[in-house]
């Protein structure tokens, strides 16, 4: 047990070094891409093509297979960023800072997908593009938080400094996001009765639920692939003056 733990620790420490991570990413990227494509497509095809039609909403409910996984990812990417922000603040691990920087655009993208598909779904079922529902509002705020993080990082010339600045924001965000969610819930109940909720009927049958699960899994796989893909570019652009990059990448 002890030896397993120490091996995991050594592996993690090795992954913290950019050259090692770059080599690992380059060799495993095709595998990650393959896995992501298989699970992602399987989930979407199953959900969009073969799951039964909802008796109340008809076929429009199939947007759930795009909307819900994106919304789940939007939140988990933020938590992921906060964890790596904490790591970068406490241990000053270089790779953790780069992780935030390459995860932020992905999180913003998934949040945007969740917002856009949600409003398309709302147009068909509620008749309006936007409702000031608690969940919609907190997702919109989430998007602003991502935008703040991206904006702050791009405004700071020195990238390591930018990493630390952004990790402060990410850590603050993870404290404040639950507060935002809670307060938006209260705000919503105070200002208007909740006529619309996105919560689907609790009696969701397994042949609707299982494809959704596969979709969520597929989105996670896709995120891991995209993150690795982005991190490679990030590493190279940060370390382009280091000798290992010159040796490996530019073949001097």
């Amino acid at each position, binding site marked *: 047990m002890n030896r397993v733990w120490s091996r995991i620790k050594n592996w993690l420490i090795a992954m913290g070094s950019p050259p090692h991570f770059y080599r690992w990413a380059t060799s495993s990227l095709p595998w990650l891409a393959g896995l992501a494509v298989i699970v992602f497509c399987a989930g*979407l095809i199953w959900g*969009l*093509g073969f799951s039964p039609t909802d008796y109340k909403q*008809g*076929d*429009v409910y*199939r*947007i759930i297979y*795009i*909307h819900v996984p*994106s919304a789940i990812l939007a939140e988990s990417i933020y938590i992921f960023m906060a964890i790596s922000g904490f790591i970068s603040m406490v241990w000053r691990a270089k790779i953790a800072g780069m992780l935030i920087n*390459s995860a932020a*655009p*992905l999180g913003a*993208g*998934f949040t*945007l*997908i969740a917002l*856009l*598909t949600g409003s*398309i*779904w709302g*147009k*068909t079922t509620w008749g309006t593009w936007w409702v000031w529902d608690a969940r919609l509002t907190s997702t919109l705020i989430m998007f602003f938080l991502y935008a703040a993080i991206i904006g702050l990082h791009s405004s700071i010339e020195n990238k390591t400094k930018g990493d630390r600045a952004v990790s402060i924001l990410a850590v603050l965000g993870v404290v404040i996001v639950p507060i935002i969610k809670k307060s938006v819930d209260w705000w919503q109940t105070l200002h208007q009765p909740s006529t619309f909720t996105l919560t689907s009927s609790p009696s969701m049958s397994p042949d609707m639920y299982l494809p959704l699960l596969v979709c969520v899994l597929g989105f996670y796989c*896709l995120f891991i692939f*995209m993150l690795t*893909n*982005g991190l*490679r*570019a*990030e590493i*190279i*652009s940060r370390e*382009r003056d280091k000798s290992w990059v*010159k040796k490996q*990448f*530019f073949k*001097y």
Partner: protein
Amino acid sequence: MLDSLQILFIMDGKGPYVWSCLLILIIIITINIIIPVVRLKRIYREGTLEE
């Protein structure tokens, strides 16, 4: 076969909504995948031009 595809695409007239959602998903994901690839390519080009 063609009939069932037709049904899948139209989805009782709600097809455009569902497929536009899929389109949005694919566009945003593709953008997020392509940006790092382009960035890497550019660095590679600049790096080889320098010396």
